[in-house]
Each structure stands twice: as C-alpha cells, then as structure tokens.
C-alpha cells in the first residue's frame, strides 16, 4: 500500500468564517476596555450578547436542522418569568440555582413542543411547525397578559439582582463579563456540535431530508435534539435578560421577540452561528442610535419588516453570504480541517 497526498479543493477557503469569529470575539473581549466610560453602551453590548444567544438558538433550529421555530421567545420569556417568580416568592437569585432552572424551563417547554409538533404520526411540514410554535408563543403572551400572579400586562419588575456567591451582578461591566462568559460557552458548545458527526447529520438533513431514513436515520430525533438544545440556550438567554433588565413582561414571550430572533438570524446569515450574532448587533445598534431620530423611530418596525422581506427574497444567506461560500458554511466533517489528507491507494 502506497500513501499519497490528496489536496483539498483550493477554492474551499476554510478560513473566512473562522476569521469573522475571531474578529467578533476580539471585539467582544475588548468592549469593557473600549466602553468603560460609557455605561449605556456597555448595557447595549450586554443586550446584544443576550439577544445573540436567542438568535443562535433560532439558528440551531432553522439554520442547522430545518425546524422553523417562530416561538423561541416562549422559551426565553418563560425562563425569565420563572427566575423572576422564584426571586420574588423564595428570595432566591443565586446563579447556581437560577441557571439550571432557566435551562430546565427551556428544556421542558421545548420538549413539550417537540413532542407535539415533531413527533406527530404524519411527518410535520415546515409551515406546521412554524405555525405551531408561533401559536404557542402567542398563547403564552396572552396567558401572562391576563394572569395577575405574573403581573399581567405590567409584567414582573424589580427583579432581584443575580448573585454569584456573595457578589451581586450589577448592570455594567460585571454583568457584561458574565453574559460574555455564558454566551461563549453556548457559542463554542454549538460550534463543537455543528462540526461533530452529529452536525454532519444536520447538514445532510438540510440538503436532502427525504434520503436519510433510507440509510437508517430517524430524522425527527435529530431535529428534536437540536430543538431541545435551542430551547435550553433560549432559556439561559431569558434568565440573563430578566436579571439584566430587572423586568420581564408579556412582550418577552410573544411573537414579536420571536420574529426579531428570526430577523437577527436571517440578516446575519443562517447556518453560520456567527451570522446571527452579527445580525443582532446590526439591528440592535442601529435601533439604539436611530431611536433618537423621531421620524425614523416611528417607522423603524416598518423598516425592519422591509429588511426581513428583502433578505428573504434576495439574500437568503444573509450578510455573511457575501463573503462566505456555501462550501465553507456547510463545511466538511470527515477529516477535520486539515488542508491535506493522506489516503491509500
């Protein structure tokens, strides 16, 4: 047996996405140093991080496993409500209890939806899942809007500060650092997942879902696993949001925020993980600065809606689609990222 080298396709260009990721994390890490004298911008950056986690959770559903979830805010808001209620009624706001609670809330709710929507006897269509999750999100918003125990339309305010041992996580750089840490954990966890052999199955589902059962895959199981993980990530984001804002309201579980997560992801580039982060940053930063201009503030939702429409029609790969090829976005799974591979002849 003689060994020889086979070079990867030179057009494959493995590094653009990695470069974008490194640059993004460099910017995120430098935020506390760049913005230490601008607390309002640190607050904005923290919001971007938290909403990015929500967008990543949608990307895991739609961008990677083809589950069109219009209800990610349900898991997000439910976790927020849960930690707020536990803080109010039990006086408990430690991260060691709140974090597992939030994860559990996201997991249980997404499990419920997966059981109803993904494991029906008839194979669920994209529209069926989208409408099912959207209905769930809308129903949850209506429920909390009329339920006095959870503050009804006013939501729950004055949520206790999140604690790590004796330290209270106040808004500003400490909370940003915590959010960045949890965001990084979620991001790299997802990164490992989508580049694993499991990710290969997800990539195959996106390309030809019909084929997989004939080679032995129960597609719904893989979709459900991705959906559950997305629910957990949305739950963690919801917990951070509630503690950071000190408030959780009906809008945090409703279709409006769910649709925003869709916009973040589609704008940045679905199926890339880093794309939704960039999409969130673009929308939130633009919203923040344009909110001061009265005329634009009034038509901002309309502009966002138009932006979503234009992206869906003309640029389904989002902003990252301009610089990242399909091959790089989808990736290769068998032999890692080595440039050259040894085969035998």
């Amino acid at each position, binding site marked *: 047996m003689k060994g020889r080298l086979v070079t990867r396709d030179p057009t494959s260009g493995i590094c653009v996405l990695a470069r974008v990721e490194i640059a993004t994390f460099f910017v995120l890490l430098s935020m506390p140093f760049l913005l230490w004298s601008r607390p309002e911008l640190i607050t904005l950056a923290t919001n971007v991080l938290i909403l990015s986690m929500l967008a990543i959770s949608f990307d895991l559903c739609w961008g990677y496993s083809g589950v069109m979830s219009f209800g990610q805010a349900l898991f997000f808001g439910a976790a927020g409500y849960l930690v707020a209620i536990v803080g109010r009624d039990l006086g408990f706001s430690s991260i060691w209890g709140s974090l597992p609670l939030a994860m559990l809330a996201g997991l249980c709710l997404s499990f419920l939806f997966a059981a109803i929507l993904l494991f029906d006897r008839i194979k669920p269509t994209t529209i069926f899942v989208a409408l099912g999750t959207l209905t769930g999100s809308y129903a949850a918003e209506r429920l909390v809007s009329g339920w006095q125990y959870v503050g009804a339309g006013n939501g729950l305010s004055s949520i206790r500060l999140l604690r790590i041992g004796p330290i209270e996580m106040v808004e500003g750089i400490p909370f940003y650092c915590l959010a960045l840490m949890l965001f990084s954990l979620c991001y790299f966890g997802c990164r490992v997942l989508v580049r694993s052999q499991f990710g*290969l199955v997800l990539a195959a589902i996106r390309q030809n879902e019909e084929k997989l059962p004939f080679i*032995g*895959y129960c597609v719904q199981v893989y979709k459900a696993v991705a959906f559950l993980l997305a629910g957990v990530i949305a739950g963690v984001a919801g917990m951070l949001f509630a503690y950071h804002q000190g408030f959780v309201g009906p809008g945090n579980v409703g279709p409006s925020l769910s649709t925003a997560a869709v916009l973040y992801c589609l704008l940045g580039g679905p199926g890339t993980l880093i794309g939704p982060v960039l999409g969130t940053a673009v929308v939130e930063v633009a919203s923040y600065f344009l909110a001061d201009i009265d005329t634009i503030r009034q038509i901002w939702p309309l502009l966002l809606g138009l932006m979503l429409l234009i992206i869906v029609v003309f640029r389904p790969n989002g902003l990252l689609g301009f610089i990242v090829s399909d091959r790089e976005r989808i990736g290769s799974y068998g032999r890692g990222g080595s440039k050259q*591979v040894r085969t035998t*002849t």
Partner: protein
Amino acid sequence: MNGATILDVRGVSKSFGALKALTGVDLLIQGAGLHGLIGPNGSGKSTLLKVIAGAHSVDSGSIAFKGRDITKATPYQRARAGISLKFQTPQVLPLLPVYDNILLAFQARERPWALMRSISRRTMHQDVMAALERFHLADRADRLAGELSHGEQQWLEIATALACKPRLLLLDEPTGGMSPAERRVTGRLLQAIKSDCALLIVEHDLDFVREICDLITVLNEGHVLGTGTVAEVQDLPNLKEVYTARV
C-alpha cells in the same frame, strides 16, 4: 438461489388513485445473489422497490424481511433492519464532500449522543476509504458530491447504500446514464458485492441484467409474469408478448 429467505413479498398491491401500479405481486428472495427485476416502462418495478424500502405503503399484502413482518415499518426501521435503497436518480448530498457522503452512511447506526462526541470518526476512516477505493472514488474524496459526473454519482450512491451494511440492497437502475465502460465497471462491482448481501436490481439494459443476474422476475402492468433463471425466463410464454425479441 438457495438459502435462508431474505425477503418474502406476498400479494402486494399498490394504487395511485385510479392507477393500479402493483396487483397481487409475489416475490421471494433467498440467500445472497443478484435478482433482476425487469419489465417495460410503467410495469411497476420502481414502485415495487419503493414499497419494499418503505417509501410507499402497501394497499394490501404483506412484506417479510428475514422472517419478520415489516409491512407497517417505516423506511428508517427497514434500513436499520438491513434494507438499503439506491434511488433511480442519484440522491447524493451535493454540497457535502464525497467522503462525508460515505461517512454519513457508516455512522448511521451510532446513537446521537455518540455522534455529538465524534468518537467514531477516526475508527471509521479506514472503512470509508476502503469503500471509496472499491468504487474508484478515493481520489475524489474531498470533491463535493455535486461536482461528480453522473456515473460517479451513481457509484457514490451505491457505495452509500452498501455502507449501511445491508442484507438486501435495492438498486433502481444502477447503470442509468452511464457510458458503456462505466456499465462494465459497475457490473464487476455488483458481482463482487453479491457475496455480501442479496441484491434486487431494476434495470432497463437487458444485456446487463442477463450478464450479471442469477434470477430474474418479469413484471408487466403491475403483475408478475414469472420468475426464474435467464433461460427459464426466456421460455415464459407471456414474456414473448412483452420482450419477444430482447431477452
């Protein structure tokens, strides 16, 4: 062919609206070997393969695989049981490398949790490369499957189906769109496979079928005209109306 019964199709009927694609079809496959399924266009050959693989449900009749009734089983359950299907048109994953197309089939029996940890990626490398070499695709391992020629995609599709380690491999027109040279290579490849599993092949090229198949079943308008060796099939009285000059 003698040996344990692999597949036992009894009285299977399938209609699409008013069109009766299959009517009371019986088919028995015993032991390893190549079993050809021939018939004119619209005779129900591809439908029968899809019914066996679970792509279509049956209206009546039963299908048993290795003695177990799989009539109600899903395609996923049938694949797990040991039935692999190569579709008529190549269904390769065009945006994934050739290597990954094969790896996907090899890892199909792993649990999701094991796949998350990528623990079998290294151990499967030799198997994947061996499969690629067997089908003359090793030097294209890193090319996207969509960039392969039609004939190479057919080979990749067969290699993928075979990587599932089936006991019964269903091949729907494995030489469709191939050059004569590619057909000869495919014939040799299939001859080599038949010691590993039973093959049921739908093919329009009757010379190809005559060369490589041990048994042939003839379908016409959803009915089985007869089953036997090439010589026996040639003597079928009804066959003369369908294939008089060709078999």
